[in-house]
């Protein structure tokens, strides 16, 4: 058991050591990997170690308990099985031994008894015979008596076969004896000489043994009848047998003793009894009977034979009387044989048993002489030793039985031993298996603990990583301010530098380059900020209503400049079912498309870029599901995410009016390899790395797009397209306001008898426009160049006049397609012709264009001319056009909304014409223009001169009716537009190089112009830039309030400062009636003490800037009044900007307030001021 324990313990120790080693190596590795977290890990290591200790202790405890339990079980089982069998076997064995011993003793007893009986009978008979012979006077009488004695004795002797001898010794020394030689089974009669007895009859009485003169005779007798067989032989007296003499019965009482016969090797039991005479006074003779104990030994042998034990009888003195062995009982000395002591017995077992007894008890035998010893070790075996004491008068006997323990208990012992062995081995097995199981189990536990520890450390690491990522975001958020400020300063300073005319050309070019680089850097910064924003999940999409179409149109307008420069057509093709108003984050939507279009422009050198949009029934999700399924390479997680998202959106669509808007950006650029279709959306991925050098960019654009689209519940992917180029398809989910869903462009031109002649340069836009027009029931004709246009015009109008002549066909052969159109046109009753002419069709390089104009002017009365002009169309052409009365001018590109407005105007004009034939044309134009501006700001532009450049504003232009406004397009109008957009969104819409250049130009002009404005105004009017403006300043911080006030006052504005948003709202509402009234009359507005602009801090007590703005805007609903609100904020993230713009603020200034920037911003928002001054 102990060794077992030791073994288990050793094993545990070994295991622990390996564990520890493993652990330490692990630690080492970790240390190597993560030097930074060393301390942390050490801490966790100690923790681990302590946990290992506990595991170790628990293991040990469990094992020890198991061992104890199984050990106890074993011992108990063994004990019960062994002890009970042993006990019962012992009692049985005792009985057996007792029984065994009892029998020889009984036999002994029997022998003794029979000997006694015989002796008594002999005595009685002798007495009778002697008495009947009375006085033996003569020898004859004597002989006669002896003869009768002999007969009597013979009778007795013969009757007892067991008797060894019967002797009768008379008083006179005569001996008569019968002797049975047990060896030869011969019977002898021994007698002494009579004559001798007569003479010494009395002397013998005294001393029988010394009487040596007597002659002994021995006759062999027939054992059956006692007849003499042989002759009488003389033998030495008492040679063969012992004759009981008078000396043996000195007191006349029977005596017993064990004697040794000469002729037998076994001891003899002899009994002697005196024969009394008739008077009972004297002993006449002595009768002695000897019985051989041989038969007892024989019996013992038989008894013990079966049990392989030993038995012996001894006298009280220890002389052996009988044994179960054949060993001689007598010492064969040269003298008389003598009885042996038991301890001298030849038989080893008996000798040792006797010695053992003697040794154990010495002479202090227990009173009854009974000994029962179960475990006496004799030699190499264990024996049962039992002794019994038989008390006979004068002859006490001791019986000893020695039985080997093996014989009785052998089987039981063996069984017990076997059981023990089996039990022990079984328990050993169980313990081993149990230990192994525990080891495995606890190994699992410790492994789990290891894993858990590792998991915890991983979690810790992850938390740290997240925290550091958080720090990164925060750092970026903070840095955005810190980075942008110097960048803005650099750019501003460069602008100032550029406006300096003392620079040489070379310097100027360098500075321009630096400026370009700076803006590029700024946009890169903005991009990175955006991506970090999206990644950190801080991007929150706004939910605001916006006009989707208008946003995209603005975008297309913006990019058209660039496209025209690149000689690429940009076309906006929105389907009619697109909702007009949707809810969503307009800025982000615009950012998506700006990125995509910019990307397309970058890679498209010639051809077209089409932005298609259509709407999907929100209830049929099949397509989007397919879309998702197609996105296998996106990975499962993404897919499930999307699915969840869709499920979610499905749910939402039940409540909300969710729409799925599909878009395609189709270009004819170099295209993207299909293998990169997925990867281009990863951050810093570019389809072709070699293009980086060519086109620049960081590869963040598409990543941002995808993040945003996903955020809006959509997907983006690249779709296979025919022909060169890329086709990006995306969808997004936007909510449409319930009331606005039906506000589709419900235009019906079918019944207005319209005929549109599209004389456009770009094939795609012409095709798409004409398709759309035809769909809406408008007849169209197309011309792509000047000659085609003239031809069609000639055919159209001159054919019309010649219809009466019916020589149309012969004079003007036209293509087949046209023919049918001509015919259908001819069928139109009272048709109105709208001729859309691309200004590029004119040959502007030479002076031919004037003639061309003159040519067209011929048809002026018969058709409405709409001129499509470029941003860089020269002023001379424009003035010439205006001079000729061509007032309908539209900037490229031409798209649906513009077309609708053109047609509506044409129809309206026609109606007006019909109604008021006498109305002056000038007025007509004017009113028309107003309407037009009102609906479509596309062509709106300031009527004033250069002094207003940089201050035109979309909102103000739209919001205020400008009666003085004359449509006069100046070359920078498009710049202004982009500028305005830029001013509003502060550059987050699009950050790519192309746009940068636009912005750069815009800002160039802006910066330049602004400074010129202020310079000139100061110089000429002596006025300050903001003279006469009333500005409401809402700012809670006294310091900033004071600084801003002083700044504004320095610029000449009147400032009213309030402390929070609520006060600002109150200050505005103080004169609500006035505001409402001002709407009607434009001129009155200045006379009222209303505010021209609000500077609004974003974070204020009570009501913050956002709330206040919302409030103000709410109160403006229903009026066309729009007070410009400029946000003041200390944050610089674009989402703050977006938030500002979302609540209705018009511009955005960051703290600390920059003098120049504030001035220009305010100026740009209060254009009216400069206008009226």
């Amino acid at each position: 058991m102990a060794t077992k324990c030791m073994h288990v313990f050793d094993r545990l120790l070994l295991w622990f050591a390996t564990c520890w080693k493993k652990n330490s190596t692990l630690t080492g590795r970790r240390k190597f990997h993560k030097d930074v977290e060393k301390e942390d890990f050490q801490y966790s290591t100690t923790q681990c170690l302590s946990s290992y200790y506990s595991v170790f202790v628990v293991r040990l405890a469990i094992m020890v308990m198991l061992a104890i339990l199984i050990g106890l079980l074993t011992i108990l089982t063994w004990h019960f099985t062994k002890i009970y069998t042993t006990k019962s076997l012992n009692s049985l064995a005792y009985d057996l031994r007792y029984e065994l011993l009892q029998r020889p003793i009984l036999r002994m007893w029997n022998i003794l008894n029979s000997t006694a009986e015989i002796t008594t009978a002999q005595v009685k008979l002798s007495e009778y015979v002697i008495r009947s012979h009375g006085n033996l006077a003569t020898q004859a009488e004597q002989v006669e008596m002896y003869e009768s004695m002999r007969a009597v004795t013979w009778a007795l002797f013969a009757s007892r076969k067991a008797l060894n001898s019967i002797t009768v010794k008379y008083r006179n020394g005569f001996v008569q004896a019968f002797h049975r030689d047990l060896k030869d089974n011969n019977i002898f009669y021994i007698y002494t000489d009579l004559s001798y007895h007569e003479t010494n009859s009395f002397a013998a009485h005294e001393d029988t043994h010394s009487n040596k003169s007597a002659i002994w005779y021995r006759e062999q007798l027939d054992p059956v009848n006692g007849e003499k067989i042989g002759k009488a032989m003389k033998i030495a007296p008492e040679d063969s047998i012992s004759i009981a003499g008078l000396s043996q019965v000195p007191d006349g009482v029977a005596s017993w003793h064990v004697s040794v016969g000469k002729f037998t090797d076994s001891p003899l039991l002899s009994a002697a009894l005196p024969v009394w005479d008739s008077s009972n006074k004297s002993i006449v003779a002595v009768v002695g009977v000897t019985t051989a104990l041989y038969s007892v030994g024989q019996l013992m042998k038989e008894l013990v034979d079966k049990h392989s034990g030993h038995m012996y009888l001894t006298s009280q003195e220890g002389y052996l009387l009988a044994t179960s062995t054949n060993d001689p009982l007598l010492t064969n000395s040269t003298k008389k044989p003598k009885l042996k002591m038991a301890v001298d017995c030849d038989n080893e077992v008996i000798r040792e048993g006797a010695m053992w007894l003697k040794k154990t008890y010495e002479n202090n035998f227990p009173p009854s002489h009974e000994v029962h010893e179960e475990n006496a070790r004799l030699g190499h075996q264990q024996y049962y030793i039992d002794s019994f004491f038989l008390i006979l008068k004068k002859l006490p006997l001791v019986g000893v039985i020695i039985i080997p323990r093996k014989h009785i208990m052998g089987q039981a012992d063996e069984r017990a031993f076997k059981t023990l062995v089996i039990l022990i081995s079984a328990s050993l097995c169980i313990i081993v298996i149990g230990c192994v199981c525990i080891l495995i189990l606890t190994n699992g536990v410790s492994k789990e603990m290891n894993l858990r520890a590792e998991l915890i450390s991983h979690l810790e690491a992850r938390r740290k990583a997240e925290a550091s990522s958080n720090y990164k975001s925060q750092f970026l958020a903070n840095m955005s301010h810190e980075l942008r400020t110097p960048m803005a300063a650099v750019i501003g300073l460069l602008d100032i530098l550029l406006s300096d005319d003392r620079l040489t050309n070379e310097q100027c070019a360098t500075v321009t380059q630096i400026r370009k680089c700076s803006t590029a850097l700024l946009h890169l910064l903005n991009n990175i900020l955006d991506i970090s924003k999206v990644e950190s999940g801080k991007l929150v999409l706004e939910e605001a209503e916006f006009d989707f179409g208008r946003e995209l149109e603005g975008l297309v307008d913006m990019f058209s400049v660039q496209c025209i420069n690149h000689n690429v057509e940009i076309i906006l093709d929105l389907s009619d079912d697109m909702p007009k108003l949707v809810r969503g984050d307009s800025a982000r939507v615009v950012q998506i498309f700006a990125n995509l279009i910019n990307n397309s422009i970058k890679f498209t050198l010639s051809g077209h870029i089409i932005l298609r949009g259509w709407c999907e029934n929100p209830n049929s999700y099949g397509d989007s599901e397919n879309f998702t399924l197609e996105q296998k390479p996106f990975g499962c997680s993404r897919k499930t995410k999307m699915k969840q998202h869709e499920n979610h959106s499905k749910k939402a669509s039940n409540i909300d009016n969710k729409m799925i808007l599909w878009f395609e950006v189709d270009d004819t650029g170099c295209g993207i390899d299909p293998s990169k279709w997925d990867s281009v959306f990863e951050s810093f991925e570019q389809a072709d790395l070699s293009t980086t050098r060519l086109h620049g960019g960081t590869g963040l654009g598409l990543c941002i797009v995808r993040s945003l689209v996903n955020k809006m519940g959509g997907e983006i992917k690249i779709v296979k397209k025919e022909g060169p180029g890329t086709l990006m398809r995306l969808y997004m989910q936007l909510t449409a306001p319930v009331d606005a869903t039906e506000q589709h462009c419900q235009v019906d031109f079918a019944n207005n008898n319209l005929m549109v002649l599209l004389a456009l340069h770009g094939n795609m836009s012409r095709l798409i426009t004409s398709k759309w027009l035809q769909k809406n029931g408008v007849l169209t004709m197309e011309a792509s160049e000047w000659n085609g246009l003239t031809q069609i015009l000639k055919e159209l109008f001159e054919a019309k006049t010649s219809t009466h002549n019916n020589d149309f066909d012969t004079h003007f052969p036209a293509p087949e397609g046209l023919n049918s159109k001509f015919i259908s046109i001819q069928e139109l009753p009272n048709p109105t012709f709208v001729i859309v002419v691309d200004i590029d069709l004119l040959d502007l390089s030479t002076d031919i264009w004037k003639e061309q104009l003159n040519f067209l002017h011929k048809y002026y009365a018969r058709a409405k001319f709409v001129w499509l002009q470029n941003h860089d169309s020269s002023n001379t052409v424009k003035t010439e056009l205006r001079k000729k009365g061509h007032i309908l001018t539209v900037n490229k590109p031409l798209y649906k909304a513009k077309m609708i407005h053109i047609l509506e105007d044409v129809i309206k004009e026609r109606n007006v014409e019909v109604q008021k034939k006498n109305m002056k044309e000038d007025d007509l134009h004017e009113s028309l223009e107003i309407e037009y501006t009102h609906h479509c700001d596309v062509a709106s532009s300031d009527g004033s001169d250069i002094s207003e450049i940089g201050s035109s504003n979309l909102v103000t232009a739209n919001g205020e009716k400008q009666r003085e406004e004359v449509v006069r397009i100046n070359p920078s109008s498009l710049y202004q537009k982009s500028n305005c957009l830029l001013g509003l969104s502060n550059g987050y819409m699009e950050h790519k190089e192309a746009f940068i250049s636009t912005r750069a130009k815009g800002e160039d002009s802006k910066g330049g112009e602004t400074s010129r404005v202020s310079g000139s105004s100061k110089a000429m009017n002596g006025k300050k830039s903001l003279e006469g403006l009333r500005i409401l300043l809402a700012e809670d911080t006294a310091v900033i309030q004071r600084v801003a006030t002083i700044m504004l006052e320095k610029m000449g504005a009147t400032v009213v400062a309030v402390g929070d948003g609520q006060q600002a709202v109150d200050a505005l509402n103080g004169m609500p009636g006035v505001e409402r009234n001002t709407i009607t009359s434009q001129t009155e507005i200045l006379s009222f003490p209303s505010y021209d602009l609000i500077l609004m801090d974003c974070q204020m007590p009570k009501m913050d800037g956002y709330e206040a703005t919302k409030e103000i805007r709410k109160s403006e609903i229903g009026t066309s009044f729009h007070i410009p609100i400029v946000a003041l904020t200390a944050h610089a993230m674009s989402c703050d900007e977006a938030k500002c713009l979302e609540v209705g603020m018009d511009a955005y200034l960051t703290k600390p307030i920059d003098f120049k920037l504030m001035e220009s911003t305010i100026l740009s928002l209060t254009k009216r001021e400069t206008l009226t001054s």
Partner: protein
Amino acid sequence: MYSVAQLVEYTSSLFQQGFLDDQFNQLQLLQDESNPNFVVEVVTLFFEDAEKLLNQLEKEIGQENNIDFKRVDALVHQLKGSSSSIGAQRVQRVCIAFKNYCEEKNVEGCFKSLQDIKQEYTLVKTKFETLFKMEQQIFAAGGSAPR
């Protein structure tokens, strides 16, 4: 008595040590005949404002267990705005750090930042006071502060 040169030197040292930034120049530019004490006025306003804010901050932060971080953030934001408006650059920087701690709800950081702010504030206050004293003396002596 301080000389004009000393004043110039002192002012530029303030800029070099980062106590002030360009905004202070702008402030000085705004000062003219119509409001001759504009800079002093604004800076004094700032002191009042800042002291008020600092007191409130101390009270908020002192609440040990349930610090209203939003409130603290708003207060720090205000302080940041006003300090940036006078060009007290270092105070502003500490404010930014403070705001970060606020967002993390890092109490210890807030404590530390508050101490920092106080220190920076006291520092900038003494600097300003010295500056104004110099200006005053020069002004009293009939000179005019350099612009």
